[in-house]
């Protein structure tokens, strides 16, 4: 009898804790998304290079974009983002502070060719497997930091087939690194991980 009661109470407690999503303020939300242990940021390490793939939930994008813009229209931006998935693919050399684009480049032409690849061709080497669909990027931007830092970033966006308002299925992004010959870089984000992303406590909150 006692065991039965305990069982019922445990189930009640488990379901009660599972129902409500965590609520975080703006700063904590950004921190949550960027923290490795929450599996929204994945690192792929090679001998002399590291790739970091960051999945960017809509609230995260909005929080970063609205930082220095008092007239930022959150609602409008959220509508634009609905049905899409956004990632940052960043890379840097682990054995030097010099940008991977510059490191080992034998001439200005060599550097230009590398830059040209990231500006015009790298997007063709990126795909997202969403559920059973293989998607090509609808948006791509290479953030050229003009050698002010060692890290370079590709920003890439995909549109979901069907009517998913936000990612609901397992996602796997892959990038075939033809330039530095590191093979295929993959990062997976499970539906479970996506479901666990907390809600933003106050949408008017800024970081």
């Amino acid at each position, binding site marked *: 009898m006692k065991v039965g009661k305990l069982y019922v109470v445990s189930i009640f407690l488990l379901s009660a804790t599972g129902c409500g999503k965590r609520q975080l303020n703006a700063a904590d939300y950004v921190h949550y998304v960027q923290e490795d242990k929450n599996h929204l940021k*994945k690192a*792929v*390490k*090679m*001998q002399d290079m590291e790739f970091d*793939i960051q999945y960017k939930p809509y609230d995260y994008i909005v929080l970063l974009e609205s930082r220095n813009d008092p007239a930022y229209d959150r609602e409008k931006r959220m509508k634009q983002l609905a049905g899409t998935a956004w990632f940052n693919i960043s890379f840097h050399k682990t054995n030097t502070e010099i940008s991977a684009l510059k490191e080992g480049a034998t001439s200005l032409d060599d550097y230009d060719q590398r830059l040209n690849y990231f500006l015009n061709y790298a997007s063709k080497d990126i795909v997202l497997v969403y559920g059973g669909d293989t998607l090509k990027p609808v948006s791509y931007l290479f953030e050229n930091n003009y050698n002010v830092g060692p890290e370079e970033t590709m920003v890439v966006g995909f549109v979901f087939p069907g009517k998913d308002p936000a990612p609901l299925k397992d996602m*796997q*992004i892959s990038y*075939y690194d033809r330039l530095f*010959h*590191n*093979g*295929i870089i*993959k*990062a*997976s984000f*499970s539906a479970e991980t996506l479901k666990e992303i907390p809600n933003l406590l106050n949408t008017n909150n800024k970081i």
Partner: protein
Amino acid sequence: MKNTFLRTVILSVIISLLSSGLVYVLLSNQSRKTAVVDAIKLFNQYNMKKELETKEKTRLEAMSKVLDSLTNKIKVAQASKDDQTAKMLFDRFNQLKQQLRDEYNQSNQLINQEVWKRLNPLIDEFGKKKNLHLIIGANGMGSVLYNDEYYDLTPELVTYVNKQYEGR
């Protein structure tokens, strides 16, 4: 009398020091873990290697189709006794064949390089996680003549590297 006693004490101290040293060496050797991994199996069963090969295969097959079409054209030229055209096509055929061979060798070399670039840090990581002190790579060239299954961590390492590759 006193001398004999002192000698016995010193001797017993030396013996106990030596035996505890021996026990320490034996125990520390026991905790030193070694594993054997079939390097060829690991390489061939790594998902990235399979995917890179599939990508390259598509490209090389397209080149190979051009060669097939040239072979047909050469046959037609020979049948119609058009020696000049046949020779020109044959030169082109040889040129392309060499190019295909070079591309094939280069792609093999590149896949090899890319795969080991990824596998090496993963093997290090695996060794550290499993508290291993040594991983011996068996490659069928005689470096490992025998090991029982206890020491063979190939399947476990293959699972590990593929899981890491898939980004999970």
